[in-house]
């Protein structure tokens, strides 16, 4: 238990002192996972809405694929994205391997099915009656979509929270496509794993405390947004 106390004290001290490497790692973590979540939301919320509302052949197949994707193992994503981004891979000319951009791509792939799946479920469980009522009142398609998203706001924000939580905590993909390069692609999870293997357990605990605090902070903000004004 001494280790935990030492680690928490160290985390506090590193932040107060403004340790440059730790601040950089923390900001990069926020930047990469934030951007990946944003991309997943921009693509996933409309996609989930469409899947929930439309009826086409193969919808169940598509919905099952999304639901399977919600448990996509990060290392698998990391491997596939690596193969695409390697110098001699199909996208090698972009020189993205071992950069933060590569990590954003991998994390977006991980977050997308999570955001899509939660949105799909949220919209899908809305009362059919609301939809018909709106249409009968003369709402346009876009107005209808907007109202439905408003109705499903709790679920949509849950989707964002789950997406962010999924990527900020993953390590397999970021380690593989980012390489844990000091000062460039080192994020809180990969740094924690490295400090463990170096035997610097106090530092590892400090980093993990910072990661938990960061995740809590972001989730608190989103939850606040979710609960604001009570249920719509």
């Amino acid at each position, binding site marked *: 238990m001494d280790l935990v106390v030492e680690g928490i004290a160290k985390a506090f001290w590193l932040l107060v002192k403004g340790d440059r490497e730790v601040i950089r790692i923390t900001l990069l973590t926020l930047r990469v996972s934030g*951007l990946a979540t944003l*991309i997943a939301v921009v693509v996933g919320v409309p996609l989930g809405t469409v899947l929930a509302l439309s009826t086409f052949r193969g919808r169940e197949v598509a919905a099952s694929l999304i639901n399977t994707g919600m448990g996509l193992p990060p290392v698998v994503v990391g491997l596939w994205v690596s193969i695409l981004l*390697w*110098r*001699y891979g199909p*996208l*090698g000319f*972009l*020189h*993205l*391997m*071992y*950069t*933060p*951009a590569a990590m*954003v*791509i991998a994390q*977006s792939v991980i977050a997308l099915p999570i955001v899509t799946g939660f949105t799909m479920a949220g919209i899908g469980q809305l009362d059919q009656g609301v939809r018909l009522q709106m249409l009968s009142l003369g709402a346009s398609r876009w107005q209808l979509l907007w109202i439905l998203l408003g109705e499903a706001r709790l679920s949509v924000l849950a989707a964002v929270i789950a997406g962010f939580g999924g990527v900020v905590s993953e390590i397999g993909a970021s380690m593989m496509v980012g*390489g*844990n*390069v*000091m000062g*460039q692609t080192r994020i809180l999870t990969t740094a924690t794993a*490295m400090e*463990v*293997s*170096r*035997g610097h*357990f106090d530092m590892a605990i400090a980093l993990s405390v910072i990661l938990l605090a960061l995740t809590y902070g972001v989730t608190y903000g989103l939850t606040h947004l979710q609960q604001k004004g009570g249920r719509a």
Partner: protein
Amino acid sequence: MVIFLAVAFGSAATAAPAAREVILATTTSTQDTGLLDVLIPMFESETGYMVKTIAVGTGQALALGARGEADVLLCHAPASEMELVTSGLVTNRRLVMHNDFIIVGPPSDPAGIRGLTSAPEAFKKIAAHEAVFVSRGDDSGTHKKEKEIWAKASVQPGGRWYQEAGSGMGQTLNIASEKEGYTLTDRGTYLALKKRLGLDVLVQGDPMLLNIYHVMQVNPEKFDKVNGPGAKAFVEFMVAPETQKVIASFGVRDYGEPLFFADAGKNEDDLGR
């Protein structure tokens, strides 16, 4: 999306053109001991290159090199490295340093190997007692060495007592310590982690336990996308006298003894004599 990202980050594509970047694929031991934290900034400020250090097992490092996905390699599996040299995939392979492998285990030493001077002999005893042995299990340089010793001991390890960690050296030592098992480790990583481990050095000094590090370039004639000049600069840097001095004194302050012996320019066959 990819283009958006390239613009959003601007990191790889624009700010750091590929020619300034050197991808170094290396073993976990050079990172876990902290040696690279000292050497890489020196190299970067001397040459202006930016190094991306990818610390993985030697198996993966060599595989990345063999596919042209890294520019320069720092590894410790001479036999596997020579295969790449022979096939022309890597070139300019130079001896950098060595330390040695040691067999560590719980102070109670259930298999009774303390003080033996033959590594295969010790492995035979561990197998005979079915004492817990934690293997790296990751095709790293250390794992390759371990398999070499088992082969020499004519033992095919397996069963409940033989556990494959599939992790780096540091993590494997942590596991061995928790499980009160034996493991083969490089001395550098062991010394760096020693104070947190419940493991003693039990067997050392067998000539076959030398752990020899070479640096080598991925052959730019085989791979047009490899940064040949950058890799060459890194090889030259690793064998330069000033760098060798830093290597020779690395760890003395913290552990009372050096973690590596600088060997540039020596003949590999003369090491350990």
